[in-house]
């Protein structure tokens, strides 16, 4: 096991090359709904059980199923009203189980990137060929069902091997959402390919907000607005990224919808916001700043 993941060099926030987003926007704002399928009785990965309760965990299964049956549709309507396209963090098996959900996203011009096959299948313990098979499944399934080239990756249930980021870059993906070290995109050091880290967020993620931090829906709206206000102010000097990662089973509960939509409407009501997708942010950074950021970064020294 490594002491340091080795994916990026040290680049302090102040003194970097300044980022300019299209339209002179201060913030590249993107919303990443996780469209997921959790299996009722998945095979157990040796490192992690899928469910908290003994099988069948009908409570936790049904709670997540709510997202596809009910919550997604409310979230979709709120995003449409705010003219926000989603960048779907997709368990690609949803293409088979619930093609209507995929169609609704595609019809609204949303991007699809991969969040693995199922949220109950984890990467830990896979050999390289197995992990390549999972990534290839995502590339092929997204192509087949949406016509899109797969560009982005967020590992299923945030599970990894030491090879994961190298493999997604090697297989032609251009960005990952797995690294939480920055509010701007950055180069990821991989063996082959050119990979950009696009800021996702755990702090803004409704799973962390609701399931871990147990906050009130109205407080979530405050958190989102405060995060945005600061990134918008800082973005005048150099463009920042704000992501809201969502899970329809959480944000799509009736009592949480209005507070969320109020925050989304507040954010999108500002002039200098670029309403982008993950792919668009990665592409712009890759075309204009990737090399400058890589050159400006300091190799990490370590006391021996």
């Amino acid at each position, binding site marked *: 096991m490594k002491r340091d993941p080795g994916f990026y060099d040290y680049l302090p926030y102040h003194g970097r090359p300044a980022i300019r987003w299209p339209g002179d926007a201060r913030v590249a704002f993107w919303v990443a709904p996780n469209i997921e399928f959790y299996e009722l009785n998945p095979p157990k990965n040796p490192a992690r059980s899928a469910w908290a309760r003994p099988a069948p965990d*009908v409570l936790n299964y049904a709670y997540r199923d709510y997202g*596809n049956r009910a919550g997604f549709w409310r979230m979709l309507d709120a995003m449409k009203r705010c003219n926000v396209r989603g960048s779907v963090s997709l368990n690609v098996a949803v293409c088979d189980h619930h093609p209507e959900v995929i169609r609704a996203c595609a019809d609204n011009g949303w991007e699809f990137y991969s969040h693995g096959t199922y949220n109950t299948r984890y990467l830990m313990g896979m050999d390289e060929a197995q992990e390549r098979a999972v990534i290839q499944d995502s590339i092929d399934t997204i192509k087949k069902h949406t016509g899109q080239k797969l560009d982005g990756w967020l590992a299923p249930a945030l599970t990894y091997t030491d090879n994961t980021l190298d493999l997604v870059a090697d297989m032609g993906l251009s960005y990952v959402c797995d690294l939480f070290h920055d509010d701007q995109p950055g180069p990821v050091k991989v063996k082959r390919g050119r990979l950009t880290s696009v800021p996702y967020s755990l702090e803004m993620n409704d799973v962390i907000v609701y399931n871990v931090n147990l906050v009130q829906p109205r407080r979530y709206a405050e958190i989102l607005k405060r995060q945005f206000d600061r990134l918008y102010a800082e973005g005048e000097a150099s463009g920042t990224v704000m992501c809201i990662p969502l899970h329809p089973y959480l944000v799509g509960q*009736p009592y949480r919808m209005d507070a969320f939509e109020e925050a989304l409407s507040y954010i999108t009501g500002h002039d200098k916001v670029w309403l982008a997708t993950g792919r668009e942010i990665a592409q712009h950074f890759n075309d204009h700043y990737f090399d400058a950021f890589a050159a400006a970064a300091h190799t990490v020294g370590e006391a021996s």
Partner: protein
Amino acid sequence: MSLAPEQLAYPQRRYGMDHALYDWSMLPRRKPVLWPNAARIALWVVPALEWFPLNMKGVPFKPPGAMATAYPDLRHYTLRDYGNRVGIFRIMQALALHGIRASVAVNAAVAERYPALIRACVQRDWEIIANGQDMDHLHHAGLSVADEKKQIDHTLAVLRGASGQAVRGWLSPAKSESAATLDLLGAAGLDYVCDWVNDDMPYPMHASGGKLHAMPHPIDIDDTTILVQNHHSEDDFRDQLCDQFDVLYRESATQGGRVMAISLHPWVIGQPYRIQALEQALAHIMGHQGVWAATGCEILDAWKSAQA
């Protein structure tokens, strides 16, 4: 290092669900439901009358509200019992102000131990929902089907006897089920089950007997979850109930009638400093036109007629 090949095999990857318990169905794409008198919201209030034995075994897990300290855990035992002695009567009063009849989920042990409480519910014309034997008799994979059937039969016999009602609804303690539970409930002649939190409306289950439905009984907007687990204030709970209602009410203008279920635990919401949150939320809800306060059976029967 590699994983067993089954980890990359997906035998249930197909259209719809990965099991045969119910069908895949999208809430906004269903036929809109018309409630009696063109109501927009069917308000379903579901307090739970629970009994947690002092010597709980907690198999296969301790349900929310279980004993927590070393035996004898008097503090948790008696606080849960507070709900059955005191808290539930505050809920009765709050509901009576608006003429709301609850559907009360009752452990069989509560009916055996406190028949006066069941009489008080029945006198108020509340519907009795079976909530298992007690909070230490969870339904789970470790039970034999015969033992689980015995538990269900015993629970129904006790509650039907104590209430004189048909008892058509079921809530498993802690919403825990085995793979056999739904079929056993269907075979026992039950009409609905409250364990599944995947919908805002009733929907048909595929279970023995062919008539079992799921009723939308939430876990997250529930007094125990919000007040005890999340440590939100009672005003926050009130606000979340009101926000839940507002969204469902607005949705009902274009998508047909909706159910708003309020899941309550008298040992939680029935505390003197908290009961006002329920009263205020109910005042908000009942202040709207087109709110039909109904029992589980009434809502399910109306939903079924609306499917025809």
